[in-house]
């Protein structure tokens, strides 16, 4: 009962934050017409808002029911696409210098999709979302590599983190139920480790890097990791990762605003 109230409150809070930022990003859009990044940011916010509203309506009207393929899935896919476009228009990334990272991102997205299918059994929805999620991850890593925000050692550590995460989550399908709790906890710890990494990175980039493009990249990296973590979790962990996601909304707006002010 309390978990339900907390989940609905968290979504409502996200809806309020999104509405406020949609309103102010609309004003930014009218003020800075030289660049297209705020247009995609506004599209991202409005799609995110509508997807949340749809999900909230469904959850209130049909609790304890899994949502079939609906407009929500298409809205979520469009949200990922416009978020990728926000990064793509803010940072002109070069795919040629990020081949290894791009392959890694696609593999990570494919493994995530396989895990989603394993958990939900919904092949069509998960493959559909997985494809768009892969594109978002690909855009994020290419822009990170182009902006040289992650060192070689950090890339290796990130690859190890992602591999360990996939291995831990995959293991929960095969191990005995007493060991499953242990693997689940390990998975959550790895997800939190990723969140800590991106928050520290974001802090350092905002402190040291004068270019707003770098800020867009790191905020989107944190947001993408938070989305990944949210999809892999349930209960209180889901709420925790959703709150990180909500935190990214003002940060995303501020980074885009800084980028357009510099033009």
């Amino acid at each position, binding site marked *: 009962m309390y978990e339900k109230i907390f989940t609905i409150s968290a979504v409502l809070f996200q809806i309020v934050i999104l509405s406020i930022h949609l309103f102010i990003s609309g004003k930014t*859009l009218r003020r800075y*017409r030289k660049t*297209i990044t705020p*247009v*995609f940011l506004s*599209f991202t916010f*409005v*799609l995110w808002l*509508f*997807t949340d*509203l*749809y999900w909230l*309506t*469904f959850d*209130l*009207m049909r609790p304890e029911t899994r*949502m*079939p*393929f*609906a*407009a*929500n899935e*298409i*809205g979520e*896919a*469009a*949200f990922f*696409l*416009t978020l*990728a*476009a926000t990064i793509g228009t803010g940072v002109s990334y070069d795919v040629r210098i990020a081949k290894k990272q791009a392959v890694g991102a696609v593999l990570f997205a494919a493994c995530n999709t396989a895990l989603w299918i394993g958990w939900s059994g919904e092949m069509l929805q998960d493959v559909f979302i997985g494809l768009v999620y892969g594109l978002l991850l690909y855009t994020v890593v290419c822009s990170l590599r182009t902006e040289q925000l992650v060192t070689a050692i950090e890339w290796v550590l990130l690859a190890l983190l992602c591999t360990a995460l996939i291995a831990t989550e995959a293991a929960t399908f095969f191990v005995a139920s007493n060991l499953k709790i242990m693997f689940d906890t390990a998975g959550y710890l790895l997800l939190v480790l990723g969140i800590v990494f991106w928050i520290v990175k974001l802090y350092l980039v905002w402190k040291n890097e004068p270019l707003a493009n770098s800020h867009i990249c790191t905020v989107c990296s944190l947001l993408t990791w938070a989305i990944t973590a949210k999809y892999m979790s349930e209960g209180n962990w889901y709420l925790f990762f959703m709150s990180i996601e909500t935190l990214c909304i003002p940060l995303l707006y501020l980074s885009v605003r800084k980028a357009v002010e510099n033009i």
Partner: protein
Amino acid sequence: MIYAENILLCMIIPLVLTMFFLRGNANRFVLNFILGMVACLLGAYVSGFIDAASGIGTEDTAVFISPVVEEMMKFLPLLFYFVMFAPEDDKLTHAALGMGAGFASYENICSMVSSGTESLSFVLVRGLAVGVMHIVSVFTLIMGLIIVRRFKVLRLESVIGALSLSMLFHGMYNLLVSETGISSIIGFSLPMVTAAILYYFYRQLRS
């Protein structure tokens, strides 16, 4: 069971005849009104097929799948017109409104033929809620396309974004009215409220 194709023919013939005597915006509106009705029938075919093929049930198909299919059916002819003829904003708006009005009118007629027209409240709900909802959803789509073009961001992401918005709005309406009580009251008033908000934004966009 109703013979939807017969109803469509009966409605289309006088409209096609009218088109010979009309020019400009009026002609465009009537053509799109007809296209809207055809889109509605095709949407019903596709939804019926998905219902039969997926086995998720008629009610769930109507609530969750139909908004996706119906918005796609309205979107495809408008996208063709938008991309191939690059019409001015006003012409695009007329086309979209014609499409939405045709879709809503044909759906309402089919619904009334199958359910009867004895109850005035039922007829009013169909007219003020479902009828307005189709116009609002297609108007949302077209406003998205106009914004996309005005800010020179005509890309796949933005077009899919505009389409998704109309699908989400339509889906939310269908979900709200799928059960009786407070949710259906919110659902039935949603199109009129959104129409008022959209009207304000449309005025802003034009100025």
